[in-house]
């Protein structure tokens, strides 16, 4: 059974159709990359998967659970999310933040020790154990994302959703974070901007444009120069990574054959 089943989902936001008849499935243990230009519907699709956005048509199932009719707590027991809106100025300790992940599993005095054990395990898995007593606002961007990933793991999810987790991170921390995500062995859907990064870390890619799913498949299948050009309006060449053999997207600068530059001239 697939971990995530998005079946003919459309989302109407005001006057715009943010998601237009999208269907896709994510297999257990798979890392699916969600690509597309700004405003193409990546975040909206993620929100629809974890149920804070209701689809105007279609259904979403998480591990067999119908998200549109389920209780929030039941969804949160199956699926953890790294949103882009997490407040950075809340004076919580790192441990407090990670323990938030136990909320959907209920909190009683009896489970307090178990919760603490799970929290320290999660911090160890994201290599953030040394941060446990720090105040969350004092962390750097890279540390913050590792702690939030630990919070998501503490939630004990079967599906992990990440909305542009590498934003504001330098290359080292981008690679560390996505490497850590890949090593978890948890089913993942991750929205990304960097095509090469996506190609390197995702098993399959889904390309969205204007709310529609325009391609779904392996990085090699999805990232063809013609498709990248049509979606992002940027000319590119496709190389092969000398070490991994994965696709390497070499974007052309605007004065080297991009469609926009040609139209202008």
């Amino acid at each position, binding site marked *: 059974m697939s971990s995530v089943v998005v079946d003919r989902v459309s989302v109407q936001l005001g006057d715009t159709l943010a998601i237009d008849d999208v269907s896709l499935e994510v297999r257990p243990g798979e890392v699916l990359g969600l690509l597309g230009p700004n405003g193409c519907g990546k975040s909206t699709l993620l*929100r629809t998967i*974890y149920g*804070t956005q209701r689809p105007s048509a279609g259904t979403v199932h998480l591990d067999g659970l119908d998200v549109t009719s389920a*209780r*929030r*707590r*039941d*969804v*949160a*027991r199956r*699926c*953890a*999310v790294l*949103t882009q*809106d*997490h*407040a950075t*100025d*809340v*004076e*919580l*300790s790192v441990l*407090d*933040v990670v*323990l*938030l*992940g*136990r*909320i*959907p599993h209920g*909190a009683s005095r009896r489970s307090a020790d178990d919760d603490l054990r799970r929290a320290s395990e999660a911090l160890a898995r994201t290599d953030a154990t040394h941060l446990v007593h*720090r*105040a969350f*606002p*004092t962390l750097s961007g890279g540390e913050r994302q590792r702690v939030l990933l630990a919070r998501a793991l503490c*939630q004990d999810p079967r599906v992990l959703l990440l909305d542009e987790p590498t934003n504001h991170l330098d290359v080292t921390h981008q690679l560390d974070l996505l490497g850590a995500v890949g090593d978890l062995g948890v089913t993942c859907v991750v929205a990304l901007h960097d095509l090469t990064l996506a190609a390197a870390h995702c098993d399959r890619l889904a390309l969205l444009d204007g709310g529609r799913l325009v391609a779904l498949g392996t990085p090699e299948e999805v990232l063809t120069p013609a498709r990248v050009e049509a979606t992002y309006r940027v000319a590119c060449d496709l190389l092969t990574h000398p070490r991994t053999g994965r696709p390497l997207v070499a974007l052309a600068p605007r004065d080297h054959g991009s469609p926009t530059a040609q139209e202008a001239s």
Partner: protein
Amino acid sequence: MTTFVLVLTIVLSIGTGPVGVPPATVAKILVAHLLPGEHVATWTAAQDQIVWTFRLPRVLMAVLVGAALAVVGTLLQAIVRNPLADPYVLGASSGAALGAVGALALGASVPGLLVSGSAFAGAAVAGVVVYVLASRGGRIESLRMVLAGVALSYLFSAVTGWITATADHGRLPGLIFFLLGSISSATWAMLALPALALVLGTAYALHRARHLDAAMTGDETAASLGVDMTRLRIEVLVVTAAMTGAVVAVAGGIGFVGMVVPHVCRLLVGAGHRALLPFTVVAGALLVVLVDTVARTAASPREIPLGVVTALVGAPFFLWLLRTRPVGAER
């Protein structure tokens, strides 16, 4: 530790007044009343009466009122994610004050069921109106809650001002009591209502402690953790309206405590509500006990309204803390 400081402060506060009673005597009188058995009275009957009948209820009232306002502020600041939120900002205090003042102007007397009930009703009306104005498409937005609350506060205060300006002169002292706050007429019988509100409200807040943590990190994050933010906000509005109503009914409008105490405590022990809530209860109680001691002794035999002293003591302290402990500094 903090609880010990509070108990010590209570004993010292009881001993302070027009007629001084030594702290040791205060402690002996309290022990004699609280513990069963024979006690050899080394104090006068007058001292006993001063301590047990007049000052203790008043100091306990200060404890209850301070603690309750601090819990209300903590709850409200968490759900609207705004450190300025307090029962005034969200309209509950001014709603309760309007209810009480309205009842007084119509001839009710203090303390009375009618005044308490009207204060409750006023706070409840404020909560409902804030909820209705801030909800949109089944969700309640935090900024709209604050804006609606502030506007409502001004409206209620204006009506209260109108009533005060046109009231009989004979009724003015009672009205001013509700506008500026005072616990000078506290009796044992008046303690039950705020005590009940404090216990129930604090129990609720502790029960929801982690959800309040999640609420502070953002609506979307909280929702992804399974927290129903709209339900949490409605619950908190109901609980805080009831607590505010209970406080205003017995103590009038006391500003600043609800805003400053949670904020100061957050700077000291962090924002995690499991640690924060017990700390705010004690700190709120401590602040109002101290402030009330000043209120009844500084210009003796006259009483200075409690709300005036809270702001006079609290504001400079808060500003000092703001300067010395920059928000976001490492602990």
